[in-house]
């Protein structure tokens, strides 16, 4: 490679200014000294770039904000604020004719942690409350409930659900179904009527027995956080160098493209890993997410994902050379897919086939699969290895393309 530090410098005569005496400073020693070893110059250039990058990160509050404040805020928001479990759902119970059976059934709702029941005597009142958004659903226990229950006929219960939010409506009706069947079983066994059920499913939930959504949301968030630093922040800071003209001045120094790229990659790699460590600590100690895999696998896979994200960020800024455009593209191409298409919030298997195909292009998808496995299941190599291989491919692709697209030219 470059042996640039070898070339002959003109011998600078240190001459006392003849003529005007004001600038008689001696210039001896500058340039004409011993030539440095080639490797030494390379290291020094890289060190200079790294130190510059680091100073810029420290002085730019927005870098710190994106790297540390935003991830912590997201973690707190998702860890505490957002939960995909329904609990204490306000539901209206209409008891048209009070009686021991109706009271017992209504009592089943009161015992459940999923419901916050409110009792009404007529359907009209309950409907008004539903319209006023005070209730998410209504369960009507009809006047002939007890009578029908004693007879051979079905004892129908009417369930009205606010279907505006389809997801919570489905959850709610399923919960009501659950309360109903539990109550029926107990009721029948109390009365010594044998329950005839063809199949008796005994559900056991693995890996996340309490079905805490936090347990899979928090690992998923780590992916979003790394995407922020790896792709968004890197794209912004590199595009800024084009915009401010600092790259043009760099290009005419003996610095090589590899040094320029490394000078960007290394600091943001460290920053991204720092954010990752912080997030993992929060996940383990603040949110009590279990960690069943090994830390070294976590570190290795995070490295792979971060390299892929950095590669995307660099490529975006090399192509756009403009902070605004780079920021928008980074959000659209990396940040939003990490949220929506990675399987972190929405199950990939329930997406349309075309969208499922697209998710294969999203690096976050592979990392989400790895993280959820590592945290909740353990070192399951049959999951980790193929996903890690995909990350290796993506990192190599994006970094390689960035290197090819970056030229020491300004056209």
């Amino acid at each position, binding site marked *: 490679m470059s042996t640039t*530090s070898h*070339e002959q410098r*003109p011998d600078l005569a240190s001459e006392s200014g003849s003529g005007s005496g004001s600038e008689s*400073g001696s210039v001896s020693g*500058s340039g004409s000294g011993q030539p440095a070893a080639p490797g030494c110059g390379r290291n020094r250039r890289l060190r200079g770039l790294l130190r510059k990058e680091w100073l810029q990160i420290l002085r730019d509050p927005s870098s710190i904000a994106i790297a540390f404040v935003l991830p912590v805020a997201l973690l707190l928001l998702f860890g505490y604020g957002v939960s995909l479990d329904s609990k204490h759902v306000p539901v209206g119970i209409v008891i048209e004719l009070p009686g021991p059976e109706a009271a017992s059934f209504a009592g089943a709702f009161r015992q459940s942690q999923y419901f916050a029941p409110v009792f009404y005597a007529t359907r009209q009142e309950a409907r008004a409350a539903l319209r006023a958004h005070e209730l998410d659903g209504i369960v009507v226990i009809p006047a002939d409930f007890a009578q029908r229950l004693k007879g051979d006929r079905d004892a129908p219960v009417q369930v009205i659900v606010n279907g505006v939010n389809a997801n919570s409506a489905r959850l709610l009706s399923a919960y009501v179904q659950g309360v109903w069947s539990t109550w029926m079983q107990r009721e029948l066994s109390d009365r010594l009527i044998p329950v005839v059920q063809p199949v008796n499913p005994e559900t056991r939930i693995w890996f996340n027995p309490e079905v805490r959504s936090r347990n899979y949301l928090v690992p998923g968030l780590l992916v979003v956080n790394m995407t922020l630093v790896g792709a968004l922040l890197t794209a912004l800071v590199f595009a800024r160098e084009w915009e401010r003209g600092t790259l*043009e*001045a760099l290009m005419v120094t003996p610095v090589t493209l590899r040094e320029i790229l490394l000078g960007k990659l290394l600091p943001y790699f460290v920053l991204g890993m720092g954010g990752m460590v912080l997030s993992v600590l929060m996940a383990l100690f603040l949110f009590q997410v279990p960690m069943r895999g090994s830390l070294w696998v976590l570190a290795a896979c995070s490295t792979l994902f971060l390299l892929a994200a950095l590669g995307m960020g660099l490529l975006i800024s090399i192509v756009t050379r403009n902070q605004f455009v780079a920021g928008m593209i980074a959000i659209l191409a990396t940040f939003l897919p990490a949220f929506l298409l990675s399987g972190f919030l929405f199950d990939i298997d329930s997406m349309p086939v075309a969208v499922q195909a697209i998710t294969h292009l999203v690096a976050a998808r592979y990392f989400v699969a790895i993280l959820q496995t590592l945290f909740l299941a353990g070192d399951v190599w049959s999951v980790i290895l193929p996903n890690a291989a995909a990350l290796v491919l993506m990192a190599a692709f994006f970094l390689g393309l960035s290197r090819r697209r970056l030229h020491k030219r*300004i*056209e």
Partner: protein
Amino acid sequence: MSTPLAASDLRKTFRSGKRTVTALDGISLAIAAGGVTGLIGPDGAGKTTLMRLAAGLLVPDAGSIVCLGHDATRESLAVQAKVGYMPQRFGLYEDLSVQENLDLYADLQGLPPAERPDRYARLTEMTGLGPFADRLAGQLSGGMKQKLGLACTLVRPPRLLLLDEPTVGVDPVSRRELWDIVYTLVRDEDMTVLLSTAYLDEAERCADVILLHQGRVVGQGPPASFSDPLAGRTFLVTGPVAERRRLQASLAKRPGVLDAVLQGDAVRVVTDAAHPPDCDDLGDSVTCEPVSPRFEDGFIARLKDKQDHAPLPGVADVVAAEDEAIGVDGLTKRFGDFTAVDNLRFTVRSGEVFGLLGANGAGKTTTFRMLCGLLPATAGRLRVAGVDLRRAAAKARGRIGYMSQKFSLYGNLSVRQNLDFFARAYGLRGQGVRERLDWALSAFELTDLADAESGTLPLGYRQRLAMAAALLHEPEILFLDEPTSGVDPLARREFWARINALAEHGVTVLVTTHFMEEAEYCDRLVIMAAGALLAVGTPAEIKARAARDDRPAPTMEDAFIALIQQEGAA
């Protein structure tokens, strides 16, 4: 010694939208070792492209360029290790301190740590940056930033130094200091310097000049070789001071006259042959005397195509109700505890071209914004077009036009769309819009470019468009904030011809400028420094104040620097 930089049949074109722009059209040149070679040419002549090719940042379409013995295209890394290149906008890291910027470039250019203390001491002594070592580069003044950029380029002394318009937008004091640094380098460090500039007076400071025009070399030689052929063809025509603008316009139209510009109270004329301009019909009070030619005359003589710009047809004569267009008394503006403008007092008479001169940060733009009613004054009396700005700013604004320092039109709209938008923004409707649009397009010779995207136009055209937009509503007073910064000399002349024509029709023009020769075009001017007023008067009066025994006829730049230094000493 072999030539440090040689180009042969160098060609380079760029695509800009659908148009192909030829930046360099087969140029061949060689520059001499150990001296300052000036690369001079109008905007878009190809100066920056040549610099970038020499630094190996661009690949030529054809031809070759050899820099310090290396082919700049194929061995760009070797070239980059040896040359120092300072781009037009040197990308300093603004969130790094002066010292940190220097350290970075010392690392990048491989300056061994042992040599750094000496080199730093030398550079800070040259640039005067010593006291600011710990200051962030973003907080330096424009001139200081340029000096730091130069220092970064020079950390490891290069054999060839490429400077792309280093003095653009830099105030005269800093400009003089930058030149001193360049001379010192050539003398003490045996450096060869190639410097591009739009300031013609800087050409005379070079040992050798390359004149570039439309991608071709029009001439190369010492500055005198450009001005000498004009011996006997340059004259100073003096008439009644009040009539000088009319005299200039009249002279410029005469056959045989290549160029006529205002210089102080007189008109400087360049003719196409060695005879004086025909002054017989101008009256007895007009005298004509020969003067020695300067570089600018030679430049204009070589480049000016004798197409007559019919200046501004159809400007309605403005009859101002008041004799006083602008009256300012005790005008003060404070931002927190920083006083940007301190107790200004001056008046501008109707129909006058009035200049505001000052270094960067002197308070010119702040003053302008207050006069336009864009910024409320902290204290003082302020009357514009007979209206007290503190009470009726909106009313006054309808009677003034404002052209800001930066291009403030919409770059992705066409010329016509921009004009249409501004016409409507000023409240014109229907027929009025069409009439003023037609006027603007023809008066500013923009008809051919009406549908071009304005952001892709050369700077000179964009400035024309901006001025046209400011005149759509036929204002009585026109404010121009550094209208010609970075514009080449030909476009600047044209611009001033339009300003003069406006003034002839009674429009009052207030203009800020960095160009000292432009101060000569003003009827009266003020010089500002650090928010305060240093001098008011006609160009001749102000120059007279700087006259000394050893300098009987100071230039405007001498006067400016003398005033600033007096103020600093006081």
